[in-house]
């Protein structure tokens, strides 16, 4: 093959810069292909009329017709502009206010700005040097100039300019018509134009008075065929028709010498149509509506703004090809960062692969399989750019003609990198790179052992997620490397390793926790390892040698730790291993000197702290905190080792390693808990209920008694205030203050029982009861959940307070109690009172196990509803905040010197975070010198030994 310098025919062009301005009439005429003169659209045969609004020289939308300007058919023709010669000039509605300002600031005779020459020069300098924003300079100029009564340059007197929204201007109380406005503006010299906020070359003020109206191409305002077969025109087309019609009439009136008032009316009408055409929501003018239905028309501005406008809906974000969406389901067998892709998706979304002498055979085979047989291919693109669709009939021919330089769009295959995302995309981990694994079925499959859904905030109750297939080698590399297993995706930049995301969760953690407390018969241990192994895995159980730590004897249970237990039914003499040993199988030898205090029994002398020496878990019970800690240790120690040895950038490998290990660990946990069994049902709750019910009762009674007293006291005091026969602010305030204080005390009193019960539960933990195991190990839930299920619902809160009746206003305190029917009690079940009672105030004595009574249930539901509403607001509010914040901070990038700069090159931070540390890669607060030093010392010692 010849290696030539690449040459591209028709190199693609890209936009380098965009200049903004106002379109001058010459340019409008020049770019136009048609002058639109008649308001008719189509003729009797349905063919667009010449010189009409739908003229074919402006583009075609009907299939079958060809554009008369460029000759392309309907799909390809981009459309061309036309123009309308306005009989009389009209003000552009959006520039009207600016025009008004300019008129106020300049002289009608000489056109100069009404300020002394020196000042004008000074301002011009400021504009050119860009010291101040042009807007503020222009504002100042106008403000100063408009006050002047005469022109310093020619002496003419300054007229009074009045402005009526949206487009009417009066000079000395007489209508100043656009044609005169234009000639005035034309007088303004370029130098003065600058200081008025306009641009002498790109935006001269007189161009804001339209003499020619550009007509957008047909493709920009296509007509649609309704179900009835009729043709409906686009809103813009309607307005254009209106404009042409009125324009025509005005022209006729002018030519036939009609009386002034008629001309003025028609002129105003023309102005109105042009105004609403451009912006139909402009104030001061009736909204133009559809003839039928009265729906407001969409003007040009309406097309652009808002969430569904051009910018946000079609430009900053777009619909894309090569994407797929489906429901997600879990799969414990999948490796981390591997995604189960339905076969039908793989056949539709293709990867473009360029044929070379080295892959020719492989790709030929794919082409031969054709589009229907997987793995196959759908299209071939030849070197000349032609696109061949592979079909059953032509696949052999195409395969034979396949040559290097062609591109084959082949089906998605195992190992291909893809982007996987769940909306809302709130952070980095909402969109990750995965390796494809094509599977039968219709759902996307997420690895569940070392659970990957956490970052996405995905659960499997029907969530759907999106897939995108990268289409270039560069993109593939980026997805694979940067979006795949990388330290960012184990730990968010939010808080580094202190906030682990993708790790074993739920059942896996329960399994790991129990495993670390278990003694297992050797045989079963090996069985478990077999179950963990996957086909084609790096892990081979037959290579593992487990040394039994003990032999079972009849009194074995008495000899082990109080929290440990024996699995299965071993016979005396049978060799046993500990779960910790099993787990250690997967830990690398260099993982050493790790000490992590657990959260399940941190004070326990023997097993409160997990200690890992040379890859073995020497002691300690596992829980969520420990598991996360181990992940952190794995990644950071690995990285520290690699770096200390001088081996370069460690983060990809470190992440992959950690995931590999944790995948196995997670699977082990799952297999163990499956085997051992775990459940949480009524029996477990009943046990807790029976044990603590009496004590809980006592606690409640105490609190209720105290609360009752407080309420009585409080009501008495309030009545005292009420009876005061005065009328000032302090009395009202005092009443409110008393009420607030009582409520807060009562609430605190009644909230205590739940907290006390929780404490009671905590102090009497039974770590053999699943109800405790789940929360204490960190798998799911908290003691509060157990307390509420088994024993007591506790004090309900709405808006931070006890439920109360409709908020009384100050009149209540000021006057005697008036019979507001619903306002003196929470529900009609209770007597009227000044302060809600115990149950009335939302104190729920029962737990779910016993069941709540009617009132308790209702009030609890109210509180629950508040939570849901809160969540709704939160979503919207945080979404808006997110958008604003992200858009503002978008362009803050780190430069080569570690400085944070924005798109204007401003230095926001001389050193990122002041210490230049990446929060995702931090160990501890930045760099944990102690632990790094440990690793470093080890490595250095090793190195020195070798020498």
């Amino acid at each position, binding site marked *: 093959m010849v*290696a030539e*310098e690449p040459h591209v025919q028709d190199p693609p062009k890209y*936009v380098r*810069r*965009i200049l*903004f301005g*106002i379109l001058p009439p010459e340019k409008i005429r020049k770019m136009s292909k048609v002058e639109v003169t008649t308001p008719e659209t189509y003729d009797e045969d349905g063919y667009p009329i010449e010189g009409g609004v739908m003229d074919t020289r402006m583009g075609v939308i009907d299939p079958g017709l060809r554009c008369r300007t460029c000759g392309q058919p309907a799909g390809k023709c981009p459309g061309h502009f036309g123009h309308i010669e306005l009989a009389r000039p009209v003000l552009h509605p959006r520039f009207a206010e*600016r025009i008004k300002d300019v008129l106020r600031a300049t002289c009608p005779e000489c056109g100069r700005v009404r300020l002394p020459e020196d000042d004008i020069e000074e301002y011009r300098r400021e504009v050119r040097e860009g010291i101040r924003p*042009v807007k503020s300079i222009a504002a100042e100029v106008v403000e100063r100039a408009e006050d002047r009564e005469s022109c310093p340059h020619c002496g003419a007197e300054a007229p009074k300019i009045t402005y009526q929204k949206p487009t009417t201007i009066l000079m000395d109380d007489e209508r100043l018509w656009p044609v005169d406005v234009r000639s005035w503006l034309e007088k303004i010299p370029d130098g003065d134009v600058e200081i008025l906020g*306009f*641009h002498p*070359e*790109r935006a001269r003020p007189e161009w804001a008075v339209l003499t020619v109206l550009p007509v957008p191409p047909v493709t920009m305002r296509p007509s649609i065929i309704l179900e009835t077969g009729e043709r409906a025109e686009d809103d813009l087309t309607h307005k254009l028709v209106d404009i042409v019609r009125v324009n025509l009439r005005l022209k006729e009136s002018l030519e036939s010498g009609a009386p002034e008032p008629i001309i003025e009316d028609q002129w105003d009408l023309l102005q109105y149509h042009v105004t609403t055409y451009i*912006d139909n929501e402009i104030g001061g003018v009736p909204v133009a509506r559809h003839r039928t239905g009265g729906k407001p028309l969409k003007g040009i501005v309406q097309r652009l703004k808002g969430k569904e406008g051009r*910018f946000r809906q079609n*430009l*900053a974000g777009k619909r894309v090809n090569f994407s797929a969406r489906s429901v997600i389901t879990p799969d414990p067998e999948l490796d981390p960062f591997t995604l189960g892709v339905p076969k039908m998706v793989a056949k539709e979304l293709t990867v473009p692969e360029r044929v070379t002498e080295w892959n020719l055979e492989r790709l030929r085979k794919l082409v031969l399989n054709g589009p229907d047989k997987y793995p196959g291919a759908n299209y071939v693109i030849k070197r000349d750019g032609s696109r061949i669709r592979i079909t059953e009939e032509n696949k052999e021919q195409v395969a034979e003609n396949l040559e290097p330089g062609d591109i084959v769009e082949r089906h998605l295959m195992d190992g291909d990198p893809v982007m996987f995302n769940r909306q809302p995309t*709130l*952070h*980095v981990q909402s969109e990750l790179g995965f390796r494809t694994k094509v599977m039968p079925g219709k759902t996307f499959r997420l690895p569940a052992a070392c659970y990957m859904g956490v970052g996405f905030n995905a659960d499997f109750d029907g969530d759907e997620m999106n897939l995108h297939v990268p289409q270039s080698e*560069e993109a593939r590399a980026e997805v694979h490397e940067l979006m795949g297993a990388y330290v960012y995706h184990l730990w*968010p*930049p*939010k*808080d580094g390793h202190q906030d682990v995301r993708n790790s074993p969760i739920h059942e896996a953690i329960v399994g790991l926790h129990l495993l670390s407390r278990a003694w297992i018969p050797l045989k079963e241990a090996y069985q478990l390892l077999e179950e963990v192994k996957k086909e084609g895995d790096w892990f081979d159980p037959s290579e593992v040698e487990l040394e039994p730590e003990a032999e079972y004897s009849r009194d074995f249970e008495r000899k082990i730790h109080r929290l440990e237990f024996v699995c299965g039914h071993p016979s005396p003499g049978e060799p046993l291993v500990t779960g910790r040993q099993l787990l250690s199988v997967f830990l690398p030898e260099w993982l050493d000197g790790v000490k992590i205090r657990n959260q399940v029994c941190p004070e326990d002398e023997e097993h409160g702290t997990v200690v890992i020496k040379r890859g073995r878990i020497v002691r300690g019970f596992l829980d969520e905190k420990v598991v996360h800690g181990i992940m952190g240790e794995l990644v950071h120690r690995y*990285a520290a080792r690699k770096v*200390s040895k*001088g081996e370069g950038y460690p983060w990809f490998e470190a992440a992959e390693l950690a995931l590999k290990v944790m995948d196995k660990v997670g699977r082990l946990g799952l297999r163990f808990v499956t085997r051992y069994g775990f459940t949480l049902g009524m029996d477990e709750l009943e046990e807790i209920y029976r044990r603590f019910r009496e004590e809980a009762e006592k606690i409640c009674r105490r609190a209720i008694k105290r609360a009752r007293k407080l309420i009585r006291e409080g009501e008495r005091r309030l009545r005292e205030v009420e009876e005061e026969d*005065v009328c000032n602010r*302090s009395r009202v305030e005092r009443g409110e203050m008393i009420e607030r204080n009582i409520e807060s005390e009562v609430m605190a009193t009644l909230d205590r029982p739940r907290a006390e019960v929780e404490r009671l539960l905590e102090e009497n933990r039974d770590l053999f009861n699943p109800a405790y195991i789940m929360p204490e190990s960190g798998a799911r839930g908290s003691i509060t959940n157990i307390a509420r299920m088994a024993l007591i619902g506790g004090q309900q809160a709405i808006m*931070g307070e006890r439920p109360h009746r409709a908020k009384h206003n100050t009149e209540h305190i000021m006057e005697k109690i008036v019979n507001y029917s619903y306002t003196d009690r929470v529900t009609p079940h209770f007597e009227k009172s000044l302060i809600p009672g115990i149950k009335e105030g939302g104190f729920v004595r029962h737990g779910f196990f016993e069941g709540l009574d009617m009132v308790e249930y209702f009030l609890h539901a109210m509180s629950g509803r508040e939570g849901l509403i809160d969540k709704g607001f*939160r979503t919207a*509010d*945080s979404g808006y*905040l*997110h958008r604003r*914040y992200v*858009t*503002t*901070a*978008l362009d*803050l*990038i*780190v430069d080569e010197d570690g400085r*944070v700069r*924005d*798109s204007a090159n401003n230095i*926001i931070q001389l050193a990122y*975070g*002041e*210490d*230049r540390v*990446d929060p995702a*890669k931090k160990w501890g607060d930045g760099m944990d010198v102690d632990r*790094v*030093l440990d690793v*470093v*010392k080890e490595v250095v010692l090793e*190195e*020195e030994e070798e020498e």
Partner: protein
Amino acid sequence: MSGLEDRIEGLLREVCEEEDVELPVALEREIVERVAEDEDLKEADEETLRRVLRALVRNYKVRMIEPGDAVGVLAAQSMCEPATQMTMRTFHLAGVAEIDVTTGIPALERVLSLPYQGPPTWVIYLRLKEPYNRDEEKAEAVARKIRETRFEDLVREIEVNPEERVIEATLDREEMERLGVDEDELTEFVREFTGGACQVEGDTLRVVLTDVESISELAELANELREAVVKGIEGVLHASVQYDEEEEEYYILVRGSPDGTSGRPPKWISRRARNSKVAKRAYLMLKLMQLDEVDATRVNTNDPKVIDVLLGIEAGRNAVIEQLEDVYESQGISVDRRHFMLISDMMAFWGELRSVRSMGGYSIMELKGSPLTKAAFEYVSRVLTETATSGDVEELRGILENIIVGRPVPVGTGTVEVTVDYSRFREAEEEEE
């Protein structure tokens, strides 16, 4: 610093030279100390020490933020993603029902958008000088002194007698005592305020106004008198004494009125604040800081804009960070502080705190945004009109505009081009032959 530490520090500097890295001050210190006190390295020779130090420095290098990282987006996302977990409710502050500070998203919102009217619950922490901060009673006295007390708080009824041109009010002795106002103080005040003769007979206060002409004038004066601030500083809605366990001292928690205080703020405040509401609040804080009993160097508030106006941009920046940390902490969410630092530095870049929200000309976006970004972000038609009028140029340097236009974004891999070195190909070919 011992000799050993000096040596290590020297070696460390050399290693840093070689590795072309500058360590942050605190880290350098820590490394030197730890290595010096390490048991295993006591006998180590220079070579070993060098190795160790080099490995440590490389470990720092590898944890550094990388050029091209879109740090702004990361900070924004890291802060906003947990916001979806935040509750919206207000939390009661230290059991003081009148002063409960909002937390959660509304609080976050207000720190970032810096609304002119200030936080929904504006609080000022007044630290006191000795001996006021050690004695609860003394502190109470100060609180009483500054709390805004209006005439109507001290009287029960106000009657107007137009024929005699007299205003009569029934004194509320209890309240007067509670709020610490005595009769003479009150009569003096009324005398000054109304310009009329004022006397107290029993529990009735009588003001005779001779130069009032009409009934309506009299009624108006009575109204003004009713609302007049007799004692304390106007704007101090509540003042309560709190105890700081950590510092072991008493301080005063003040709830400020969003309208600030009475009187015209000094020019320098008005100029720096740019907005009258902000200026009035800053003025209130100034008044409070100037009290003799107050330790002005330790006064704080939950409104960063006021801090910016009174104490400068750096202080304002620190106030923003502090407020942000508080919000997240109170919600139990931990976010690395570098993200807070970045956003506050962004807000502080221009020399005064700028808001994240678009606020009529003074937000961050409006200052630096390019036409297309602004159009995509906010009021499309206004932006386009202004851009067209001034003939602005879109240089396509930011992120959004490149997306709109369809170019690769100038971030990370977008700043880099990949090419093939064809000479290598030819070499390989030649070798084959």
